[in-house]
């Protein structure tokens, strides 16, 4: 009898414990919850922040998937206040735990971004593994855009930020944690992708972002938009409602002490990801290779890549040695009567190898020059100096860029 009582008590305890720690006592009405998938922050003229949240609204019907998309805006003197404003004016509790994307508007170009991004690193309401990007336009515009890639524009954007294996590693991805870690490091340097909107239609038939997004004003401080389908027609206009905009994230914005100080173009971003991330399966073009007076183009696929950076420090200065060794194959060429097939194990022609190596050496050299010009230590030279050459840290911590010498070595090998 006693044993039975213990068993019942154990079951009750386990149930209560599970409910307690899974927040089932704190559940809020799902119909009053806005599940936010992305937020965009813009700077208003009065210095306040406008935070636009893209929410997934659960619908009873799935006949019109565009209904899944809607935006709510809130305004406040701090990011936290703007989020609070969304809840206060809409009656929806802004649930941020599924928010994986934070878009910063172009109005923040001359602004210390940590003032807005710090909130996301401190709060437990949003995961600080959420991606951060800067928009070339207003941040909210990216959320309003209709794209053929996905019903929810932020999901489309995330597809190009976190690419699947087999696609080019041409985006310098950044999340809340890495931005803040960079900002609070001694170098105070960070970076994030700069998002450009590319229209696939010709200029004369290109719709404006506003007409695609369909924003409707709502209260003094808040506005609620009716989703992508709101103004651009109902399901009947399916083709037009989808829009034509796609995103480009292969440019990287550089930040020093939270302020934007420069950019890396697509070539330099690719070189940067080659040095810092997994470059395998990426492709790159080698253009205008002169072969007997004919200009030829090649597409090379990287099968394996080993990048290394070493820093040697002495009283005479700092020397950075960058080396990149990659095993590549020709995927395509416009050479006539070519025998260079992807599947054939043919050696890499010396003229392609030399041209590829010189191209990449130039890109990496430009990368280092950009670091020197902008002062943004995206190559982590100061971090390396602190961690591995601490005895020289006090000597060079304020002038490591002035004392930087560098050499670049790139070696591409093909089938041997």
């Amino acid at each position, binding site marked *: 009898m006693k044993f039975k009582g213990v068993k019942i008590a154990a079951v009750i*305890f386990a149930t*209560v*414990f599970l409910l*307690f*720690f*899974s*927040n089932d*006592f*704190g559940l*809020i009405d799902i119909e009053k919850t806005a599940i936010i998938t992305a937020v965009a922050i813009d700077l208003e003229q009065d210095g306040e922040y406008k935070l636009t949240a893209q929410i997934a609204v659960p619908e009873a019907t799935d006949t019109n998937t565009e209904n899944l998309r809607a935006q709510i805006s809130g305004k406040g003197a701090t990011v936290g206040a703007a989020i609070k404003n969304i809840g206060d004016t809409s009656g929806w*509790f802004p649930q941020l*735990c*599924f928010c*994986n994307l934070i878009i910063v508007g172009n109005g923040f170009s001359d602004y210390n971004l940590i003032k807005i991004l710090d909130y996301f*690193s*401190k709060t*437990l*309401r949003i*995961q*600080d*593994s959420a991606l951060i990007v800067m928009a070339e336009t207003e941040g909210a515009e990216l959320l309003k855009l209709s794209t053929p890639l996905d019903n929810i524009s932020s999901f489309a954007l995330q597809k190009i930020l*976190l690419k699947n294996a087999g696609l080019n590693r041409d985006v310098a991805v950044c*999340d809340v*944690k890495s931005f*803040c*870690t960079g900002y*609070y*490091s*001694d170098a105070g340097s960070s970076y994030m992708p700069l998002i450009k909107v590319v229209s696939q239609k010709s200029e004369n038939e290109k719709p404006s972002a506003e007409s695609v997004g369909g924003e409707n004003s709502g209260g003094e401080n808040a506005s609620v938009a009716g989703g992508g389908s709101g103004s651009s027609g109902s399901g009947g206009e399916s083709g037009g409602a989808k829009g034509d905009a796609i995103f480009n994230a292969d440019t990287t914005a550089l930040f020093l002490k939270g302020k934007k100080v420069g950019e890396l173009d697509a070539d330099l971003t690719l070189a940067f990801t080659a040095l810092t991330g997994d470059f395998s399966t990426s492709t790159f073009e080698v253009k205008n290779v002169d072969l007997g007076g004919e200009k030829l183009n090649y597409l090379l696929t990287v099968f394996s890549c080993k990048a290394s950076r070493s820093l040697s420090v002495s009283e005479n200065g700092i020397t950075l040695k960058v080396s990149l060794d990659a095993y590549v194959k020709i995927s395509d060429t416009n050479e006539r009567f070519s025998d260079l097939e992807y599947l054939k194990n043919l050696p890499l022609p010396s003229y392609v190898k030399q041209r590829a190596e010189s191209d990449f050496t130039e890109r990496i050299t430009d990368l280092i020059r950009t670091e020197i010009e902008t002062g943004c230590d995206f190559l982590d030279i100061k971090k390396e100096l*602190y*961690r*591995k050459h*601490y005895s020289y840290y006090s000597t060079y911590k304020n002038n490591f860029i002035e004392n930087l010498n560098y050499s670049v070595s790139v070696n591409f090998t093909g089938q041997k």
Partner: protein
Amino acid sequence: MIKQLKTRQICFFYIAILPVIKFFMMPSVISGISGEDIWISVLINCLLDFTAIFTVYICLKDQDGDFFTLTEKLFGKAFAKTVATIYIAFFLLKTVMPLNEIKDYVEMTLYITSPNIFTFMPVFALIIFVCVHRLRVIGRLADGVLIIALIGYAFMFALAIPNTDFEALLPVGAHGANNIIRGAYISQPWFNDCAYFLFFTGEYIKGKKDGLKIFASFTLSALTVIFFCILFYGTFTSIAFRQRFALTEISKYTTVINNTERFDYLPIFALLFTAVFSLALPFYFATDLIVRFFGVKRNLAAVIISLPPAILLLFFEEYFATIETFITQTASGFFLLFGTVFPTAAAIVMKIQLVKENKIEIQRG
């Protein structure tokens, strides 16, 4: 005299129950001072604890009865009562930080929409439930939560390791001896685990190589904490000092989590489950001392001990910043004194006294 514990249970106690309470706020508090030398500060505290446990074990291993029984036997009732009173205060102070950490954790991560102190109050029911039992309950808890804790550790570490920048711990010692020692000092409220061992010595069924097993399990427990702190600092580097709840933070950057959402909450729940029992320990031992030295019934003693922390949570929440500063700054010396120095010194004095008494008895024939 029936022994309440087995050596195995003491080992499981150190491996499973003790490390997890150090996974909440402690790493961020230390990293705010010691930076990348966080692991050295933790190592210092672990070595201090190890020395104290080692000394107490070596000096009192052949005795029947725990440290407090021996104190009464050798130094008299009044002295033992004074020591017991000090340790009741010690354990009550030791409840403050973990209690607030777990309460904040529950409120800020699980009940963010409706944080309410009463949501947390059921935890006291569990604490009182543990407190009303005899020492055997600690052994049974250790047996019970071992698997849960080990699964939690294994998952947590496996998820955190791929995103840890181990080079972030370089250069070693750059923050200077002063900061490293200060980091060790302010984290005293989370250490001084020898105080628990004072209740175990003489209270377990003796077997072969007990000492070796206990020291090995304590070492494993210490390594778990050091490794967790390394993973924590390697994950957050320059912003580690701002990550108040290390437990939920370190595992979420894995690619798997990005693609599948937060299934790491499963090991987190496992560790949270263990942490609640870890939280009950100081309550339990304070209750035990009240029962033994002040003749209060166990049920009543459990309620009496639970009241001050509950009142602190209910009515003095707005003073917690001051309380936290007091506990980590001023009270740290008290923790070090009675968690490490006093047990070590007292065990040596007891050993000398026992040897003397033994000689006198031999001389008397």
